[in-house]
């Protein structure tokens, strides 16, 4: 059904996508290798420090080191290790996490992935929807008090790093008005119960709020408003206005429709990049997501786990950009394939 040239383009883009993922993986691996952390040394030294006892036999210690290197797949030259990790990458089986041994990387990731995905998708999409709608609506009442207040609020909120805002939220809602408990939550076994929703909501509200408020009232609001104002100054909108169409109709058919497409593109970029950025939010809110896990893994030098998480992120971002590239011409007819 698809035309030939399109298949060719798809294949080429997918080739690029694969190459990108491969290169990003290699860069990550090299950086990880340069990292001055020998996790085996770190584990053994730490155990011994706490033990405080003599170990005596250096031969036994040497043997222990060897066994540990063997178990964690850290044996051999740089190239050998690279090949072994590449192999793991290709099969998406990163083996045993060093930190969480004997759990595998997939297991550890699978515990946390739903949380991160839920938080990011929920907060990003919600802020996107809210921000765009407010932006479009406000542009209809440009120059009014409400518009001015919202605009100045957005300009002040937008530049605040979201983690500063997160801190403020923690102090306000955890401490001054302790609406939200800071202790971790327990998920009810029944996924379809009201209790489940309430519990998840409780756990996600504060971290999501920090992303939503800054995101919605900041970036999405500002950009959608700017776009809406652009459209309002266009002739076709003026024509619609002169025809006396109701404001709701104008909003739906003229503004939102035209704002939405470019904003979807921006959203796809955002979904990709927010992964790394959520790390701080997760740490601040003690949120059981991948960000905190990644930070732990990086600190400990847990190669399999870091590579596992980073690879997932790399694939996510690369695929998002790829899809964006493929969709972009659909969204903006002025951009053509080369």
């Amino acid at each position, binding site marked *: 059904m698809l035309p030939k040239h399109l298949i060719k383009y798809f294949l080429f883009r997918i080739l690029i996508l694969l190459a990108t993922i491969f290169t990003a993986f290699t860069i990550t691996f090299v950086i990880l290798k340069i*990292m*001055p952390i020998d996790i085996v040394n770190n584990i053994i030294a730490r155990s011994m420090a706490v033990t405080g006892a003599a170990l005596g036999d250096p031969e036994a210690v040497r043997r222990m080191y060897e066994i540990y290197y063997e178990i964690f797949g850290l044996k051999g030259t740089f190239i050998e290790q690279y090949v072994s990790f590449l192999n793991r990458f290709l099969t998406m089986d990163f083996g045993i996490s060093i930190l969480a041994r004997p759990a595998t990387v997939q297991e550890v990731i699978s515990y946390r992935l739903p949380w991160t995905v839920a938080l990011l998708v929920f907060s990003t999409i919600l802020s996107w929807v809210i921000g765009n709608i407010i932006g479009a609506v406000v542009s209809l009442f440009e120059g009014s008090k409400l518009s001015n207040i919202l605009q100045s609020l957005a300009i002040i909120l937008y*530049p605040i790093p979201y983690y500063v805002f997160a801190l403020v939220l923690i102090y306000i809602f955890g401490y001054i008005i302790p609406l939200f408990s800071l202790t971790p939550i327990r998920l009810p076994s029944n996924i379809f119960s009201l209790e489940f929703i309430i519990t998840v909501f409780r756990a996600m509200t504060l971290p999501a709020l920090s992303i939503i408020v800054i995101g919605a009232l900041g970036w999405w609001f500002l950009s959608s408003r700017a776009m809406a104002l652009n459209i309002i*100054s266009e002739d076709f909108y003026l024509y619609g206005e002169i025809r006396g169409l109701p404001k709701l109709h104008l909003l739906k058919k003229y503004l939102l429709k035209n704002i939405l497409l470019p904003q979807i593109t921006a959203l796809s970029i955002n979904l990709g990049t927010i992964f790394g*950025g959520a790390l*701080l939010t997760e740490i601040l809110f003690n949120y059981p997501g991948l960000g905190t896990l990644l*930070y732990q893994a990086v600190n400990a030098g847990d190669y399999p786990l870091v590579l596992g998480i980073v690879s997932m992120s*790399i694939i996510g971002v*690369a695929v998002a950009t790829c899809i964006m590239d493929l969709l972009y011409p659909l969204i903006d007819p002025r951009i053509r394939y080369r």
Partner: protein
Amino acid sequence: MGVRLVVQGLFKNIIKTRKMGLKFKAGATIFFVIMIFGLLSFLTPHYHSYWYHFPQAHPPSLQSVDFIFGTTSNGRSVFWSLTNAIVNSLIIAVVTSMLACHIGLIIGILSGIKGGVIDKIMMFLTDSFIAIPGLPLTIMLAMILKPIINLFLLGVIISIISWPWSARMIRAITLSLREKDFVIFAKFSGMSTWKIIFSEIFPHILGFHATNIINTMLGAIGAEVGLAFLGLSIIEMDTLGTMIYWIQRYGAILQNMWWWVVPPIATLILLFLSLYLVSTGIQEFLNPRLRRVK
């Protein structure tokens, strides 16, 4: 020749600033006030880095300059810390923006103009860097370079995650410029590729480049604060990030030491606000359609 053109272009842009809107003016004003405050750091007394030189957690008082903003839990003057933090954070920001934006500029223009294989390779590299999650990459690099870290290196680390975006944007602009009449005309006037880049394409990118530099500065300051949160900045130097790090460390907010908490966070927000306003101001100037209708 090229350089002269660039300077000419910049000069023209600067002259036009008086035509710029209120946002730019407000932003620039706030920024200069912060800068002047930061410049006070050149008067820093030698004892400012000493721990417990002053009484601990002393609220602000007017008895001397050292106490204007009070002292911290480790007996240091908040005032002097803040002035130094502003300068240091700005150094990181400037290093980052200069590096990242110019690397992005060069790569973006080159791949936009040359096209073909060079374009493919460069964009493919750029995409690879974009695909690696930014903050984890910075954390890893910061950990690697921890033994030799300094302000410049910190800037370099942060710029590693910043340049790909600049490169992509610049390339997109260059691609659209490449097919414009004036570029073809210049080509058929026998101008060399370099000359076309400098005299025809570059002046059109300049405006975007300026806003990009400011936005990158904004991002760099934020990234430094993020790294400092995790204890990966230069904790023995005063930056806005490390100030917040120490506030966290000593539980200053819970101890109601507002005189220690408010200055760095307020400065951070004001700095962000001012840079953001300046950058939108420039954008609006360059693209009048963004200015308010009616």
